[in-house]
């Protein structure tokens, strides 16, 4: 497939997805998007460097979790970092459970109504949603260092491009980007080439690797993103979104 037709396919797919949940008609979209270039960046084949990255092909899969099955052992976080990075490092794990272990996502400020071991016992696992367009972390990255993994289309940090500015961390509403102080680079869930270590490690079957679907609207954000998007990218956004 040529780069051009591949790009076209990605745009079509993304538009299918976006228009299915917005009031804009597909025709409107095709109309307003006429003429813009869309970069599809992967680890292997980088498109024109000058082109701001906007639309990414959707991921093949994602990891989903069942909170009622989670037993709070954190073996997922350890498998993620030990088997991938050679260190036990919950603070850089790409699945995040520890932060909810004691008091749940609402922390201890909800008193006895909280979740976690000190609340009602429910342990909430936080996972990367492998967001569809617009991918917040990738869009925020000033170096376009968040790219597609060729095996799963997972959004991954290209550590050669990452300069450790941490803008991606500020972009993710679910706080799913980690910063590794050893490497001074960001890191995020890359789906372990389609065989996620966390899923394999879970002793209670609380995690599953499934075909991708959009779960961004189902999980409440943890923070309000404060990333700054570069003017070039903002302009590209406006190419489609401006009426």
């Amino acid at each position, binding site marked *: 497939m040529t780069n051009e037709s591949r790009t076209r396919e990605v745009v079509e797919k993304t538009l299918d997805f976006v228009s299915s949940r917005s009031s804009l008609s597909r025709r409107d979209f095709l109309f307003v998007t006429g003429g813009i270039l869309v970069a599809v960046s992967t680890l292997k084949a980088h498109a024109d460097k000058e082109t701001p990255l906007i639309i990414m092909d959707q991921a093949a899969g994602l990891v989903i979790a069942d909170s009622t099955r989670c037993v709070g052992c954190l073996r997922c976080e350890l498998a993620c970092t030990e088997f991938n*990075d050679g260190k036990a490092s919950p*603070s850089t794990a790409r699945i995040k459970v520890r932060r909810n272990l004691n008091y749940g996502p609402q922390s201890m400020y909800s008193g006895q109504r909280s979740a976690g071991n000190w609340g009602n016992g429910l342990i909430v696992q936080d996972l990367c949603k492998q967001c569809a367009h617009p991918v917040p972390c990738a869009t925020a990255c000033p170096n376009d260092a968040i790219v597609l993994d060729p095996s799963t289309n997972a959004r991954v940090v290209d550590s050669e491009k990452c300069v450790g500015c941490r803008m991606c961390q500020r972009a993710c509403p679910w706080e799913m980007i980690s910063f590794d102080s050893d490497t001074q680079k960001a890191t995020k869930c890359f789906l372990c080439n389609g065989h996620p270590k966390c899923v394999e490690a879970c002793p*209670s079957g609380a995690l599953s690797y499934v075909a991708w679907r959009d779960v961004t609207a189902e999980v409440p954000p943890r923070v309000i993103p404060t990333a700054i998007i570069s003017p070039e990218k903002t302009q590209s956004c406006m190419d489609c979104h401006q009426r």
Partner: protein
Amino acid sequence: MATYGGWAGKVLRVNLSSGKISTEDTIEKYKDFLGGTGIGYKVMWDEVPTGTKPFDPENKLIFAIGPLAGTGAPCNGRTAITSLWPTCWPRPLVGSGHMGGDFAAQLKYAGYDAIIVEGKADRPVWLAVTNENVEIKDARNLWGQGIRRASLDISREMGPEASVAAIGQAGEYMVPMSVVINSFSHSAGGIGGVMGSKHLKAIGVLGTGSIRIGGDKGEWEKVIKLHLSLFGANNQHVVPNSPQPWAEHYNPRSRWVASAGRQWGAALPAIDTGTCDPHDLNKIAYRTNNAAYFLGDKAWKYTIRGNGCTACPIRCHTRLKVPSVAEKYGISETGQSTCVRLMFGGKFFKTFPDGPKGETAIEACMVGMHFADDLGLWDNYGQLQRDFQTLYAKGIIREKVPEKEFKSYSWDKYEQGDPSFLFELLPRMATKQGELGTALGLGTGHLLERWEIPEQEWQQNHALLYWKQGHPKHHSSEDAGQCGVIINTQYNRDAQCHSHTNFTRNGLPLEVQKQLATKIWGSADAVDTAGAFAPMNQYKAKMAKWSLLRKELHDSISLCNWMGPWIASPLKERGYSGEDSIESLLYSTVTGDKKSREELDQIAERIFVLHRALTIRDMETKDMRTKHDTIPDWVFEDAKGKAPFSKGTIRMDKEDIRLAMDMFYEEMGWDKATGSPTRETYRKLGLDDIAAELAKRGLLP
């Protein structure tokens, strides 16, 4: 100096008298003792002089972990806490308590292999450890609060991920029968009062660092998967307790209780535990439900889920939701614990209106957990409750407690099995109110002395399960005959060793156990069926030595001896064999310091013998055999008068046990007459300096 994976590399030392906070190098100072109890005993030997009392400022508290803590090695969650043991009677000696939870992992991520607490603060304090930032903080606002409130307040200050190990009112009042607790329900007995004596309310730990895997990460993944493949349920019971489609064997005593139709009934919605094929490693966490095992089948419907330590796939704590207790007793409808602590409340009572495993029993257990884990009370492995029942039944409480105080208790409620009785008893025990509360809080040895009851009376009563020095048996003759007896003579509190029982009670048929035993201890004769014991032989002595060394190894490298060792497995294709070198594989790969099974066992022996040396030094006698390694009379008796070695009795024979101790001492390289290690044994273990010190004191055989 070589750098190793696994260890954090630093030991934190906090002097509460001077406020001085310092660190030392773990590898340089403690590598020969691995970590955990190894560091604990070493510090006690070097720094705490003979004659020190548990609540003296000169006593030290060593919270220590090993190279596996905080990693993905399964079952690494227990922190060993070593100190002079307040319930050890008639004189305090070294002991260790072990708490699971998340504390060990957090401590490692914060960058420490141990915290040595020394001295005594002049006012209530707590210790905040956030990575390299360590601070002694004012705890006057926390003093008087329960563990739950103190933990919440500290979490608010440190952040929700912190692990807080706190004492309750019992520890503050220096009640010997008190605990420290972290992660909601993970306690270490005996330690609470020592913390209280130092005015130390809590230690909060928050770590954001990492632990390097010293060996190849691919190898590490393989070792962990091998280890997990050998797992059974809690206590490494490797067969299910009911017939399962995949299982060749089952055993009703097994803690592998999962089965189709048995559900975590309080999960929303309920989750069926299913058949749990041992090859399905994504189902390990369903195999065990200790609430159902200990409280009966009624507990299934109240089960929210399993819980436990960081990195452990066996969830030996069960989280329960019992709505009726909120309404009836005004306590939280959720509670969580394991084993004896699950039954803390229930075991005070002789009867309940609806039977021993009815709804009231479960309610009593919920009330018990509510108080024990907030006030911070210890049960001394159930001895507290057995003592209480016996003292009441014999009329001793009525006799010893002043009449006015006696009448202030609702004994009618007690006799009817009304859990609300615990509202009268437990807070008074935690705050030393009155004669009864004070006496119960002392621990068995000191209680008997205070009430002028001869210890022998307790040692003759089989139902009490009392062993010696103020403490009960912990898996003795009932599980492993002579081997169990030997093990129960060795410590200064209940033995806490599971190496032997986790093999003999693993649920496999005797002929399979005998095949496995031959590989490990050299002969099938090492094991018998419980209740059909054969006379002593040297293989039983080998098994006892192996069991004790593995316990100390586990307590030092941070593996749970309640779950291991892993010498049997649920795998038919392996002939149910496990892997006797799993500790060596884990240790070598995580640290990068290659050590064979034999080399690790030798270090474990060094640690165990150091414990022995500490006991000899502080008892100021080398005559361990008659003064320390004693065996209660009930071991040699049978209620129905059955002869030793006959079927259906665990009765032991006195001559045979004498031979057992001979064989054990010989196996250990200890002098048979005194039961003390010889100079040559100390030398072989690299403990020349210890031998020299003991020689100076006339304590070498």
